[in-house]
């Protein structure tokens, strides 16, 4: 396992050289998007797979993260937001702000929607995300439905962030830190309680855990993760738009989690990669690529226990 991870890490580091040698710079962009979506999908998997909360509004936090970067950029010319909050184009400022704000939004949405369960929870998270979507559509000072164009990516230590390779390495580094952190959280005291709540909420209550508080905490952490991904996406696309929090985006994140393997640590990485690669290649092949994707999703859900991660696990088991 360690060996496989080490090889994968080396491959990720070597990737820009490979794409350049092949003369396929588009592949590097694809890889960058995979890293960003892997973060977003993993944060959804944290509440969906580990916590058993089927949130259908996860793109809301992705969008809030992206808009944080966009709005801070829009005010970086000197005109402070509401006359008090100065803008910023420094990644060391914008990323933490995006994480903080999406965490706050998640706290509000979570506090209300976690009072429900099951289908109601799915619907209420969807409703909140759509409310945010329409809020940003009507937010004309920041481009309304056209979104905000961010003319240059945020600065970091004077690096040339216009360079695709540099940006890839920055985003990859943030991704690695994120996954290292996530691994700690999953294996922490809190992570154990969260997984207990997924397995049997009634039992956990009978042990004295008040499930609501733990679920809310997880929901906030997951929102922060998605906000981080959104902020990276805004830097990568140099653009933030309401589409980033449309319910179809929440659906895509969910598809990534399911494709990769619900509740598996690396599943969302596989899922994000599979989804984006399929999207890229199927879309180049046929206009109706979503039909093909639908069939593949069907096969994965019905045919594999636990998505791609589950499949890999069983292949490894068979080789032994």
């Amino acid at each position, binding site marked *: 396992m360690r060996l496989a991870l080490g090889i994968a890490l080396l491959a990720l580091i070597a990737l820009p050289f490979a794409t350049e040698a092949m003369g396929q710079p588009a592949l590097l962009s694809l890889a960058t998007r995979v890293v960003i979506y892997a973060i977003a999908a993993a944060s959804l998997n944290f509440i969906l797979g580990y916590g058993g909360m089927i949130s259908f509004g996860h793109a809301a936090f992705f969008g809030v993260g992206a808009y944080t970067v966009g709005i801070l950029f829009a005010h970086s010319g000197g005109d402070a937001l509401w006359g008090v909050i100065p803008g910023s184009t420094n990644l060391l400022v914008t990323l933490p702000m995006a994480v903080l704000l999406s965490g706050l939004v998640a706290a509000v949405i979570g506090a209300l929607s976690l009072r429900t369960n099951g289908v109601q929870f799915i619907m209420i998270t969807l409703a909140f995300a759509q409310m945010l979507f329409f809020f940003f559509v009507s937010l004309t000072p920041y481009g309304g439905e056209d979104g905000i164009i961010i003319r240059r990516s945020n600065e970091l230590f004077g690096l040339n962030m216009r360079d695709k390779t540099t940006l890839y390495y920055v985003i990859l580094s943030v991704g690695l830190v994120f996954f290292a952190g996530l691994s*700690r*959280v999953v*294996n*922490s*005291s*809190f*992570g*154990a*309680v969260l*997984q*207990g709540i997924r*397995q*049997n909420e*009634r*039992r*956990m*209550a*009978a*042990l*004295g*855990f*008040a499930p609501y508080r*733990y679920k809310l*905490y997880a929901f906030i*952490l997951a929102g922060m993760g998605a906000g981080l991904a959104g902020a990276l996406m805004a830097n990568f696309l140099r653009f933030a738009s309401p589409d980033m929090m449309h319910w179809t985006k929440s659906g895509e994140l969910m598809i990534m989690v399911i494709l990769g393997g619900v509740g598996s640590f690396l599943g969302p990485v596989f899922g994000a990669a599979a989804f984006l690669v399929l999207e890229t290649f199927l879309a180049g092949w046929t206009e109706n690529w979503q039909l093909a994707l639908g069939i593949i999703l069907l096969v994965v859900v019905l045919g594999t226990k636990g998505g791609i991660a589950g499949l890999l696990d069983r292949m490894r088991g068979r080789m032994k």
Partner: protein
Amino acid sequence: MSVLRVSHLVKRFGGLIATDDVSLTVEEGEIHALIGPNGAGKSTLINQLCGELAPDAGRVELAGRDVTRLSVPARVAMGLGRTFQVTSLLEDATCRANIAMAVQAREGLNFRIWDRIVARQHLWDQADALLAGTALAERSAVAVQDLSHGERKQLELLVALARKPRILLLDEPMAGLGHVESQEMITRLREVGAQTPMLLVEHDMEAVFALATRISVLVYGRIIASGSVEDIRANPEVREAYLGAEDELC
């Protein structure tokens, strides 16, 4: 002061009165058995005592404090422990992890996201100590979903004990156990009962008569009799209502 005091508890489901003015106490050092035919409202009563179900009227007090309106976790924090009739455990987790989770619940520090659960040696030590000497000791690394019914029943009790409750509500701990397993469970409950007062809901009369210091009989949501083992054995009303055609009680 009673460890548990239930006063005039009433619960209605539409026109059906599931709990009809029930009052009972569990005193220190007591194993109070609650018996009654199927559908007498025993589980409904237990669920109200635990806080899963809100009563329509009446009071529940734990060690002198009114807990009628408190949630399940709040009551558990005050020392109420329970086992489930249909075992309710963490299915994917091992035997040992289920017990460690109960210890974790008692010790707190559970919002920590930067520690390592495997490194909280104290939890695992206590789980191992509870497992030691039981039939489950050598099954400690087995996931709950792979345990037999009897093993699950034993684990239910160990998990409840790991929480170190001041009072235990046991909902049919013998249900579905074989003869040997029942005997072991009776022995175990007698040991536990020496330290922890219990309200024991049970169908197995052999177990009830072997363990109980007091018996209450619940029929159609009402307590029709309450007294010592001998009183209940001799009570004609109980024989009529509950034991029916049985000539001899065990």
